[in-house]
C-alpha cells in the first residue's frame, strides 16, 4: 500500500512540476544575469555579443546549436579553449534561461 502510495505521489509530482526546465529566474536575478552576460561574458564575447576572443553569441550564430549543448558549455566550459565553467554561480535553469534569451537576441 505504502509502495502504491509513493508511486502515485511520484506521478502526481511529475504532473505538478513544470514539464521541461523552463523555470524563469526571479526578476531581480534576470537583470543580474543579463548584466553579467554583457559585462563579464562580454569581456571575451563583446558587450554587444558580436564576438571577441570568444565566438559571437548572436541569434544567427547560435540558431543551429542545440540548447542542451549550449547550456552544457555555459555550465562546464569548453576544455582546450579559454571558456571557463560557470556552474559555480549559474544554475542549470538559469543557464537554460540565458540560452533562450541569447537565441531570441538580447537587447
Amino acid at each position: 500500500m505504502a509502495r502504491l502510495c509513493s508511486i502515485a505521489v511520484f506521478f502526481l509530482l511529475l504532473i505538478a512540476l513544470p514539464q521541461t526546465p523552463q523555470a524563469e529566474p526571479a526578476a531581480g536575478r534576470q537583470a543580474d544575469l543579463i548584466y553579467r552576460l554583457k559585462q563579464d561574458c562580454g569581456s571575451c564575447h563583446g558587450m554587444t555579443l558580436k564576438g571577441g576572443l570568444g565566438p559571437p553569441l548572436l541569434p544567427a550564430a547560435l540558431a543551429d546549436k542545440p540548447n542542451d549543448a549550449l547550456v552544457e558549455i555555459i555550465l562546464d566550459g569548453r576544455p582546450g579553449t579559454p571558456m571557463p565553467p560557470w556552474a559555480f554561480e549559474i544554475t542549470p535553469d538559469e543557464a537554460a534561461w540565458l540560452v533562450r534569451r541569447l537565441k531570441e537576441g538580447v537587447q
Partner: protein
Amino acid sequence: MSRWRRIRRGGAAAMLALALAACQAPLRGTGDLGLIVERAAGRVEVIETSGLSSLGEVGGLGDLSHASAVFSRDGRYAYVFGRDGGLSKVDLLRRKLAGRVVQAGNSIGGAISQDGRLVAVSNYEPGGVRVFDAETLAPLADIPATYGTGGARSKVVGLVDAPGQRFVFSLYDAGEIWVADLADPATPKLTKYRDIGRQPYDGLITPDGRYYLAGLFGEDGIALLDLWHPEVGVRRILDGYGRGEEPLPVYKMPHLEGWASAGNLLVLPAVGHHELLLVERETWREVGRIAVHGQPVFAVARPDGRQVWVNFAHPLNDVVQVIDLPSREIVETLHPGKAVLHMEFTPRGEQVWISLRDEDRVEVYDPETRKRIAALPADKPSGIFLTARANRTGL
C-alpha cells in the same frame, strides 16, 4: 572726439578683450591629462591629475567593451581602439572627436610608432593589423594575419611598438609572432616566427624596447623574442610553470600590456594559477612566485618599482593587493568595491587611479599611505590611460 567718449570707447575695448579672454580656455599643457573609458556608454571622460577632476566627456566612440588608448607624442590626442573596429582620435584639449574610422569588424588594441606618425590596430575580424596615418587616420598599410596553407586568418593580439618603426604582435590562432618593419609604410617588411606556442593571448615589450614576451594560454610558458638579436629566434621561458597542477578556470584573461617591469625583475601572471611569477631579466629564470588572492589580471608596478598593485578576475574582482617587491610580501589588501577593472599610476607615482565598474566610480589612492584621496563618478569605467604613456615604448 571728447575726452570722455575716448575713455568710454577705450573702456569698452578693454571689456571686450576681457570677455574674449574669458571665452577662450586658458592655455594649458597636457602632461597631467588622461582619460577614463566608460565602456557601456561608448564615451571617454577626460581627467586631470593635478586637481583630480574630470574636465568633460567625449562620446560617440562606439562599442568600448574592450578598449585601450595610446597618445600622440605631444600628448594632445588620444587614439582609442574599440571592440567594434573603431579607431577614434580624441582631442584632449578641445574635448572633441578629431577623427574616427571604423577600420575592421572587431579589434582588440593598438600601438603608435616610434616617430608618432603611424597608428597600428590589431584586429580579430578580419584577422590582421592595419596601419593608419596618425594625423589624418588615412589607411597606409594592411597586414593580413594569414597562416598555414588554407589561407585562414588569425586573430591578432599583443600588438606593441618597437624601436626602429617596428610593430610586434602575436597570432592567437596560429601560434606565431610577427615583426613588421614600417620604415616604408607602403611596403611593410615582415619577419615571422612560427611555432612559438599555443594560443598566445597577449604580449608586452620591456620598457627599453628590447624584449617582446607573449603569454601563452594553451600551455604553461612565455615566448620570448630578443629584438636586438632577432636572428636567434623565439625561445621559451618559464616552460611548464604549472608543473602538472590542474589549471584553475580563468574568468578574465590577464593583460600583459603594462605588466610590471621593476628593476631587473619582471612580474608576470600565472594563467590558471593564483600566483605571480617573478622572472629575472637576462637569465630569464623564475626567481620566485607570490601567491595572491585570485587570477591576476593586471599587475602594475609603481614607477619606482618598489610596489606592484594587482587586480583580479571575476568573481574575486573586488580586491586590490599591494606587493612590496623587495620583501615579496603582500603589504595591503584593499577592498575598493565591485569589479576593479584597471589601475594606472601617475608618472611619478604619487597617485594610483582605480576603476570600479560595478560601482560606477573611479577612485584615486596615495600608494604610500594606501588611503583614498579622491573619488569621481564614472559610468561603468574600465581602462584609465594617462598621457605619460605618450613618451614610453610599448604603451
